[in-house]
């Protein structure tokens, strides 16, 4: 006989056993259904530190849960489960499991910045959404998003040469995300380019594809940018591994 109350319980909290014997009493069947407690047994105090270590998350400790961010949110208007106010709270109190339940929608922020403009405490919720997404990726809870792949390719090229070369970005981006290079829109664009025959432009593009020119004196800039990135990542790594005291 189905137990209808089961629908009120979170599926992950249901513990069922096909066969179970407790103290020599056979409780196989429906009698062996148990429910994990909903009670929050502790706070993970490192979670707030972890998330504030990502760019954009530095001000979550200011939040007083007024809900202005969620009320103003573009995405929330379409999907009521998209609730920045709630996620900031979970991050602050270290309710990691609760936060991970929403990992499939957290990254859907469209960065319209309405939340950041209305926030009375300057929490900068839009930045927090970025920090949350990056935290999910860094912890391996979600795969890298396409925009994250694009960003990485973009800044790696800048770091190497001080310049970007669009053809290379597109090629590598498709490569990283496992997409074929033969995209209908790309083929149409190339055909139009050939038809219009901007010879000098194509010549320059060809040259930079072959020789990858660098910005003058780039190595110094490259060195200091790399140093900064390394420093920041080291700090973050320490916090993520829980080695950092408050």
């Amino acid at each position: 006989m189905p137990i209808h109350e089961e629908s009120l319980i979170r599926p992950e909290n249901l513990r069922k056993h096909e066969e179970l014997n407790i103290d020599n009493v056979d409780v196989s069947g429906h009698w062996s259904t148990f429910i994990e407690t909903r009670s929050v047994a502790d706070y993970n105090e490192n979670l707030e530190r972890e998330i504030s270590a990502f760019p954009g998350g530095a001000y979550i400790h200011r939040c007083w849960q007024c809900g202005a961010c969620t009320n103003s949110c573009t995405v929330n208007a379409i999907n009521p489960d998209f609730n920045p106010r709630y996620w900031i709270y979970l991050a602050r109190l270290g309710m990691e499991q609760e936060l991970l339940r929403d990992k499939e929608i957290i990254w859907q922020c469209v960065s319209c910045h309405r939340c950041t403009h209305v926030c009375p405490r300057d929490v900068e919720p839009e930045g927090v959404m970025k920090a949350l997404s990056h935290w999910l990726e860094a912890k391996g809870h979600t795969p890298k998003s396409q925009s994250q792949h694009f960003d990485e390719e973009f800044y790696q090229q800048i770091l190497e040469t001080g310049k970007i070369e669009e053809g290379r970005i597109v090629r590598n981006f498709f490569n990283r995300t496992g997409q074929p290079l033969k995209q209908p829109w790309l083929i149409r664009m190339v055909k139009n380019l050939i038809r219009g025959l901007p010879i000098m432009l194509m010549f320059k593009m060809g040259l930079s594809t072959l020789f990858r020119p660098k910005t003058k004196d780039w190595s110094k800039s490259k060195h200091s940018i790399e140093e900064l990135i390394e420093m920041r990542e080291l700090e973050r790594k320490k916090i993520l591994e829980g080695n950092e005291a408050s």
Partner: protein
Amino acid sequence: MSQSVLVVGGGPAGLSAAKSLASIGQNVTLVEKEEILGGAPILSGYAKLVPSGEWASEAIGRMVRSAENSKSIKVHTSTKVTELTGEPGNFSAKLSNGTEVSVSSVILATGFTHFDSVNKPEWGFGSHPDVVTTTQVEQMISSGKGVHCPSDGRKPDRVAILLCVGSRDRQIGREWCSKICCTVSANLAMEIREELPKCSVYIYYMDIRTFGLYEGQYYWRSQEEFKVKYIKARIAEVTFDGKRVLLKGEDTLVKRPISIPFDLVVHAIGMDPNIENQDISRVFGVELEPHGFIQRAPAYDSIAGTSRAGVYVAGAAVGPETIDDSIAQGQAAAMAALGMATNAA
């Protein structure tokens, strides 16, 4: 100004009233039931005061010394008033030490009594040593011992402060807001974080009432600079898990039950009417308001007035009050009493 003005109570309000009267040459009889002057901030060993940040012993200590050194103030400690007879402008007061004084008017600055947390047994005070009150934490700080768990003296890693203990609670007949506990708790939370930077401090609240400019100085600052966490939840029960104190309740924003271990749980205790208010009401012939504080006359007609002409009141005797406002009210009552003294002369 030959007649004296009787000031009852040597706390901030009473000291302020006495000092104000003395500053213009009015004779004052100051009666204090305890052995020393200073009132709650001194007797209960408060640490740093809101909003000055000065140590209570220094700030209130200055007021005490100034009263003791004044030629116009006659101080009677360990003394109570046992009888007040006569008319406004010409009262006669008998004191428990046998003295009888003729006074033109009376200022009651009889203050309040701290809420006794054993009246809220579900929150663990009295059943576990690591459940303490804000007053006890004040004493830990002011005595120089520092914040610690009374059970074994260890420094806490995690502290919870429960607001509205003995306030806003119909179950125990205390419906009023005690006005100062939110600010005091935010202040204490910052002092704990300052002394023990590795200790997390959580404040469980129903509403936060750090009114006026205290908003920035205490509520915002405690969060922005000291990372104190505020959780909207009224705790259901405080128990003991064998190692630490366990806080049970509902996290109202997550809609989930919580059961969180803490090293130290602090009750932000409220202000009760002075436990002797029934006697005070009888001796001075003043009415009490329904909660048991001294009934105030409408401010428009008579600032600092009571139900009896010639008897004035100031400070926490009329309801929960801050130290600064008690001091201001003391001076207002002094002005009212002085009008009476001058007219009678």
